[in-house]
């Protein structure tokens, strides 16, 4: 055949691990003639999708990038002074290249295995410390999804705390950002909280009020003193949350100092591009007394078995075993990558650098105010930081028109005033252009040289120090910063070292080409509330993606707003609830959830105002259909929905899924499908075809958005046409259905910039490639299961005797624990010595590990991982046979740090080489765990979540006194 001159769509081969030859051999191990036969034995026939997916064929990588360039040029990056919680920012190049664009930082999952995540944990501790310092609070978490949801979390937190004794009213200042008010309202309604929006000066804290929310500075730029408001709230036994701009806190009194109880906000302007809405890290911080109510992940300081300081996620049980029916939050993730960036921005600039940036912005704003006042315009608030509300002498229309002509976005308040919010990117030329837009002549430089703004009034000005810790005062040259970033990176095991076989997490390839456009200014530089006609490129991406997701799920209506999986669950249930209400079925409030469900399911149901009824599962992890039918019938008058995961959380294609959906529909309920395991279905079966009404899709699992070390994620939902009218709306940008529920996230399309990654993933693989990915993922899992079967017990083989798993499988370690005392945790820690991250531990079955290889891992890597496990099995046998001590052995002492194996003393019953180099490939490349096994209980009992002073690095005994 003559050589073709066309580029071949070779990305499929780049994305899939096994070569065609590998596949042939792997099928022999699995005992199948063909991959089609394997699929036939794995996916139940009645639900198999027959047709080809109606999405385009794949394209080569170079061609895709050319396409994206063209699409990018349809976005117009005007200068945006819209503010509202989103600001222009300069991402330091050293952070952009070495963190945002570096797989050593963006490919990891959540830091469940602390010993091999110390770099990221330190970066997050820096973030928490910066938040604690700037907000003047005592404890902060490692980020939330966005400012709107953070405000809603603050409300839930205060409500949960006061529920027993206090009222149900939450006061919200009318000068909060509109999207924040929208998200808070959406969250409040199903919980029975009454939100009253009004001027903060009129807040009346009576016995019905459990809390209030104010914005600082206000959305229109005014800086108000909330001391008296906080005092009044506390006198009435109520509490105050403040949504505060982090950069403003460099120059303004912190919320902690003026008496607030909780602070929330966006950290985007600390070096994270706006990205048309996200992803960015929101923060939440609070007083010590609220620490047990603080939602999300908290990084804490603990110690390892050697008494050395070690970091880990504190109160981790709250997440893995989230409080199910008693939840006050369903938050299960963070925005780790973005929080790391914001924390590093603080490290790089330090307190003096931040003061310079904030001081310059304030001076620019004051300069603009002078120029505008001189030209006869009214400045509505005289005390401001970076935002002016201006009443133009000639009316708003003329100014807005002139701005448009100059390709400048100003905020239109709709009452004859306009808003101008400045940021660190603003230059003197920009100020001149702004003056011109307002018809005020003159040069900003001349103006600026002629005055210095008066200091803020004493009750407003910041006097307290911040970022005093050495970490914020050491790395201000690029060389030092580069090395600090690299040092932390090298303490983290990421996909650039080895496979991360976390079951239910789908740690597949995050291809470079998919990531590349995210940081292009045409995508990164757009303000989320810029007029939609400036974002035609984004519109094209989102329309494509919506269409493809609809085709893949068989559910035609899509909302891209939910910005995490749990958020998607919650949104889907709210949509079902809205439909039930529209049908006059307000009394339908029961949500059936199988006992094997992930803990976020019941938590989301509770937040959506539903009551959870648990359906039992059989020994194989399948839904007990008889129990489901009994409960659906018993609650036929009240049934709202069922939440099922498919394939099940146990990695099994349940044959009864269609029947389950039918039972629920017959009894008046809707079927919510948890899409966590969609990677086993794409192209093989479609939820819409077998009866699902709503599904959320974890784009960060199935559609290749990197996990970012624990965020960002995206959880868009797809629904039937019947539910389409209720898809979420937004108070600033019109989106959603005709009878839309309120906003569930701060930005209309959630974290818009990373939608590009999923778009590129599908575009590159095309209709055949996405299906091939699923088939390969299932083959890889079955191959590993077969290889491990002789050495371990594999749980829940699907079907009667066919012996197939879906895309993941569970290895039962309980028999070994019984015989030897070796636990799943010991195995997980020992895997680190072999250079691997452990699979998912103890979910969904205690005492087990769940392995999900994904399609992207090569046969060689699968073999290496199997060898590691088999070798560990032999080590356990040594204990079983009494050849190794039950307490002092390679497993119980794992992981072994370089310091331990090179120490002068060594008194174990095994050699140093057995400890640290138990497999041949380690001679080639050895990843050293930075610390020994972390003592979690110590850390949870002694919660420290800020950078400890250097001198406090001491042994637990002394620290506890």
């Amino acid at each position, binding site marked *: 055949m003559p050589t073709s001159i066309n580029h071949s769509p070779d990305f499929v081969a780049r994305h899939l691990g096994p070569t065609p030859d590998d596949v042939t051999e792997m099928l022999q191990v699995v005992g199948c003639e063909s991959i089609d036969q394997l699929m036939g034995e794995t996916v139940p026939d009645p639900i198999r999708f027959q047709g080809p997916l109606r999405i385009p064929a794949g394209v080569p990588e170079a061609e895709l990038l050319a396409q994206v360039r063209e699409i990018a040029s349809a976005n117009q990056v005007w200068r945006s002074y819209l503010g509202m919680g989103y600001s222009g920012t300069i991402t330091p190049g050293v952070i952009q290249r070495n963190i945002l664009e570096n797989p050593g930082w963006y490919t990891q999952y959540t830091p469940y295995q602390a010993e091999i995540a110390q770099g990221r944990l330190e970066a997050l501790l820096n973030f928490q410390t910066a938040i604690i310092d700037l907000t003047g609070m005592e404890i902060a978490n490692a980020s939330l999804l966005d400012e709107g949801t953070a405000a809603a979390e603050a409300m839930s937190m205060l409500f949960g705390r006061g529920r027993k004794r206090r009222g149900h009213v939450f006061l919200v200042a009318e000068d909060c950002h509109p999207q924040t008010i929208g998200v808070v309202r959406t969250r409040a309604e199903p919980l029975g909280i009454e939100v009253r929006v009004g001027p903060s000066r009129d807040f009346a804290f009576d016995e019905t009020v459990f809390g209030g929310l104010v914005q600082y500075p206000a959305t229109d730029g005014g800086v108000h003193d909330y001391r008296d408001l906080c005092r009044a709230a506390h006198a009435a036994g109520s509490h105050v949350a403040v949504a505060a701009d982090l950069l403003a806190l460099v120059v303004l009194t912190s919320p902690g100092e003026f008496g607030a109880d909780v602070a929330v906000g966006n950290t985007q302007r600390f070096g994270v591009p706006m990205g048309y809405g996200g992803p960015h890290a929101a923060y939440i911080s609070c007083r010590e007394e609220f620490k047990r109510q603080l939602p999300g992940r908290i990084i804490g300081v603990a110690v390892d078995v050697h008494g050395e300081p070690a970091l880990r996620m504190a109160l981790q049980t*709250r997440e893995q*075993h989230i409080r199910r029916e*008693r939840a006050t939050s369903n938050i299960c993730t963070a925005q780790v990558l973005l929080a790391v960036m914001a924390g590093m921005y603080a490290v790089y600039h330090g307190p003096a650098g931040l003061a310079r940036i904030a001081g310059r912005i304030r001076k620019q704003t004051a300069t603009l105010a002078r120029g505008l006042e001189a030209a006869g315009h009214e400045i509505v608030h005289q005390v401001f930081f970076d935002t002016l509300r201006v009443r133009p002498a000639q009316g708003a229309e003329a100014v807005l028109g002139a701005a448009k002509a100059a390709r400048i976005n100003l905020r239109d308040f709709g009452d004859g005033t306009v808003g101008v919010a400045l940021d660190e990117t603003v230059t003197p030329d920009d100020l001149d252009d702004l003056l011109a837009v307002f018809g005020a002549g003159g040069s900003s430089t001349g103006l600026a040289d002629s005055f210095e703004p008066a200091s803020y009034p004493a009750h407003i000005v910041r006097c307290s120090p911040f970022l005093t810790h050495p970490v914020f005062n050491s790395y201000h040259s690029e060389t030092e910063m580069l090395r600090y970033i690299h040092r932390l990176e090298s303490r983290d095991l990421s996909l650039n070292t080895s496979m991360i076989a976390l079951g239910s997490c789908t740690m597949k390839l995050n291809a470079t080409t998919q990531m590349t456009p995210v940081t292009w200014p045409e995508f990164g530089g757009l303000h989320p509330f810029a007029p939609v006609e400036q974002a035609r490129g984004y519109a094209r991406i989102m329309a494509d993606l919506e269409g493809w997701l609809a085709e893949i799920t068989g559910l035609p209506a899509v909302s891209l707003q939910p910005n995490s999986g749990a958020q998607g669950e919650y949104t889907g249930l709210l949509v079902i609830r809205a439909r039930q209400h529209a049908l006059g079925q307000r009394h339908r409030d029961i949500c059936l959830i199988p006992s094997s469900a992930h803990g976020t399911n019941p938590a989301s149901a509770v937040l959506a105002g539903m009551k959870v009824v648990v359906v039992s599962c059989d020994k194989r992890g399948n839904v007990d259909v008889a129990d489901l039918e009994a409960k659906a019938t018993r609650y036929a008058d009240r049934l709202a929905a069922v939440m099922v995961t498919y394939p099940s959380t146990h990695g099994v294609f349940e044959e009864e899924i269609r029947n389950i959906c039918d039972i629920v529909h017959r009894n008046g309920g809707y079927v919510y499908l948890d899409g966590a395991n969609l990677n086993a279905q794409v192209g093989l079966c479609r939820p819409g075809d077998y009866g699902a009404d709503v599904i959320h899709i974890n784009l960060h699992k199935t559609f290749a958005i990197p996990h970012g070390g624990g965020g960002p994620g995206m959880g868009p939902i797809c629904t039937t046409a019947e539910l389409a009218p209720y898809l979420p709306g937004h108070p600033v940008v019109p989106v959603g259905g005709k009878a839309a529920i309120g906003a569930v996230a701060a930005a209309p399309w959630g974290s818009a910039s990373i939608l590009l990654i999923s778009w590129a993933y599908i575009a590159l693989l095309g209709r055949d490639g996405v299906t091939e990915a699923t088939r390969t993922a299932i083959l890889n899992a079955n191959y590993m299961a077969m290889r491990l079967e002789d050495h371990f017990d594999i749980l829940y083989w699907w079907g009667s005797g066919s012996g197939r798993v879906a895309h993941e499988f569970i290895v039962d370690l309980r028999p070994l624990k019984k015989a030897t005392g070796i636990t799943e945790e010991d195995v997980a820690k020992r895997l680190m010595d072999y250079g691997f991250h452990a699979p998912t531990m103890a979910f969904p079955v205690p005492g087990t590990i769940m392995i999900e290889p994904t399609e992207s891992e090569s046969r060689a890597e699968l073999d290496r991982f199997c060898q590691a496990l088999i070798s560990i099995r032999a080590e356990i046998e040594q204990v079983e046979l009494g050849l190794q001590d039950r307490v002092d052995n390679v497993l119980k002492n794992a992981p072994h740090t370089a310091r331990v194996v090179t120490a002068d003393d060594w008194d174990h019953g095994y050699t140093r080489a057995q400890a640290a180099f138990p497999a041949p490939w380690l001679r080639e490349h050895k990843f050293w765990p930075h610390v020994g096994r972390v003592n*979690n209980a110590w850390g949870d*009992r002694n919660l420290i979540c800020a950078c400890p002073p250097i001198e406090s690095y001491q042994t637990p005994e002394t620290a506890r006194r």
Partner: protein
Amino acid sequence: MSDIPAGLRYTTEHEYLRESDEPNVYYVGITDYAQGELGDVVYVELPEPGDSFAPMETFGTIEAVKAVSDLYCPLAGEIVGVNEALDDGPELVNTDPYGEGWMIRLRPDDPEEVDRLMDGAGYGTHIGE
């Protein structure tokens, strides 16, 4: 084998009732078996004195390294005291579950109900020991 003292009363959810020196007031905590299953306890969320609970209603939560679990009130009754020592020393639940690791002092609405709970032998059978 876990410790199951005789003379106490037990629930299927692993709470115990122990007599106090005050008539018709009982210490309530979780059993040695339960603390072993939970692992290191890091936090115990308790109700306030004066609160009343229905039988098997949740009166608090316990956070351990391995799991978060609800605490169930064995009988209908009123809380007359809570163990504030657990605030700073949640590990007492592990080290001395039947003594210093008690959680609440409960005054049952119906003293007769106490004897309907399992005794030590019954609880031992319940947990398979």
